[in-house]
């Protein structure tokens, strides 16, 4: 059996989760500090990929990264091509999963008790120390939950991925695009195998989220 779709899906999901982790935290932290109007506009823009159909996201990504487009042409000239390559999947997965991380991180940051940051500052602690050693641990459950959700979403991404990188066995195939291809070509047995693999991974991910939430509630009693 060809395990390529599993490996490809996992590496796309893992790399895009790392990108989304930092980008989501960065945006959540800085957007919260902006004036209200700009914050409202940015909030809508950053959350849009969550509610848009993935095909629409894929269409926009083709508008940007298509080889006939300025950005795509420029990237092509330096040897990077996101269309029809496995690492194009990182882009689609990251864009689609980003709002989940962004929103969960923002919710976690908003619940942060600012007097902790203030008292750290008056004690002479640097702002980066306060961020990494006080704010992040305080918000860790929300941020972990956001990361797991983003990973799950990245792993299951189909619409935008199939538009940008298509389906080439052994090159761009992921679990979700494989399921569709096997079903389309009448190979029900292979489709079922990948469906079961997908189910197993999703179940593990959701179980992790639940465990994290339970831990969070337990933590409040301490």
């Amino acid at each position, binding site marked *: 059996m060809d395990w390529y779709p599993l490996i490809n899906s996992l590496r796309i999901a893992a790399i895009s989760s790392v990108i989304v982790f930092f980008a989501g935290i960065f945006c959540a932290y800085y957007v919260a500090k902006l004036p209200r109007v700009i914050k409202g506009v940015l909030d809508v823009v950053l959350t849009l990929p969550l509610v848009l159909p993935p095909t629409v996201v894929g269409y926009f990504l083709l508008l940007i990264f298509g080889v006939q487009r300025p950005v795509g042409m420029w990237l092509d000239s330096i040897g990077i091509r996101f269309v029809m390559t496995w690492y194009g999947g990182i882009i689609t997965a990251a864009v689609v999963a980003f709002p989940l991380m962004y929103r969960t991180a923002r919710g976690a940051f908003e619940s942060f008790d600012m007097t902790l940051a203030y008292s*750290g500052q*008056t*004690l002479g602690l640097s702002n980066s120390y306060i961020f990494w050693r006080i704010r992040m641990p305080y918000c860790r459950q929300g941020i972990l939950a956001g990361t797991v959700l983003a990973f799950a979403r990245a792993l299951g991404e189909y619409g935008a991925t199939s538009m940008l990188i298509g389906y080439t066995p052994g090159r761009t195939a992921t679990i979700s695009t494989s399921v569709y291809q096997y079903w389309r070509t009448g190979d029900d047995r292979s489709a079922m195998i990948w469906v079961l693999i997908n189910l197993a991974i999703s179940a593990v991910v959701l179980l992790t989220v639940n465990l994290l939430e339970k831990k969070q509630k337990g933590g409040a009693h301490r």
Partner: protein
Amino acid sequence: MSLVVDIKKDLGEFKLDVSFTAENGVMGILGPSGCGKSMTLRCIAGVEKPDSGRIELDGVTLFDSERRVNLKPQARRVGYLFQNYALFPNMTVRQNILCGLRHEKDRAERERQLAEYLELMQLGGLEDHYPAQLSGGQQQRVALARILVNRPKLLLLDEPFSALDTHLREKLLVEMKAMLEHYGGVSLAVTHSRDEAYDLCASIALMQNGSIHMLKPTKQLFADPGTVAGASMTGCKNFSRARKVGEYEVEALDWGIRLTAAKPVAEDITHVGIRAHYFSPTCRQNNYPVKLLGSIEEPFEDIICFRYVNQNPDAPDLWWRIPKQFRPQGVSEDYSLGTAPANVLLLRDIK
């Protein structure tokens, strides 16, 4: 050591406009919730920025809008005890206190100071506990230890006792007082409780709607608050409109009586006040017939409501606080109450 503050900040609902100087010792800022007390402390600590003005500590300019100086909170050396103590929940007592010692590069010296303050604050044995495992009083001591090891030039205390139970509050008040004396520098304590302010502070600034409208030594402030708002904030319950009728005499218009004061009456007084504790049936001065009404029972005192016989019907009842054992037995028709001239507060009503 001295602190000079003169700042303005628009807070939407009202404007903060605060100006005062504080010397070594504890100064209290007393005022109702939402009057701008905490915002004043935040501006001094540097976690909020005033719109304009100047803050100077010990000759060092912390903030000056004209010279565009605005030191970061990290550079101000101001210790800030928050209402909820703001201990870092993910760190142990030891780690929390060490946060205040990061300026000290020598490891052995850090450990020595940590041990010294654990001992001083009676926190021995609690080093490895997390804040959530401590009582309110212990949390307060950890927060103080963390601030004091940082050697601040100024201490800011924001409602230091409001998060504590009543019985703990009185005990900790005594401890805090000793600790502040040990510290020796300038301290500012914000509170809405006149009892805490009286016990803790050498001088008190009264604050209302964003500005300080009186700053006096504590005893003097309680003896002669000067304004209706000042008397009210220091706990006076009974007020009447008044006008001067003699050098030492005023007419209390709402109460329908004349009162003799202990000091010459100023021309511009508008009100008189008498604290609920200061009535006595045996005092012959300022003694007038009253009608006793209902009473409210408290653990050690009773509050008895009464009216003067000729009182203006629209004026509210007066309050008389009396220790239980002195409470009058049976109410006779011809009861009368007096008060010493020194207890007649001569007040102006400034809006």
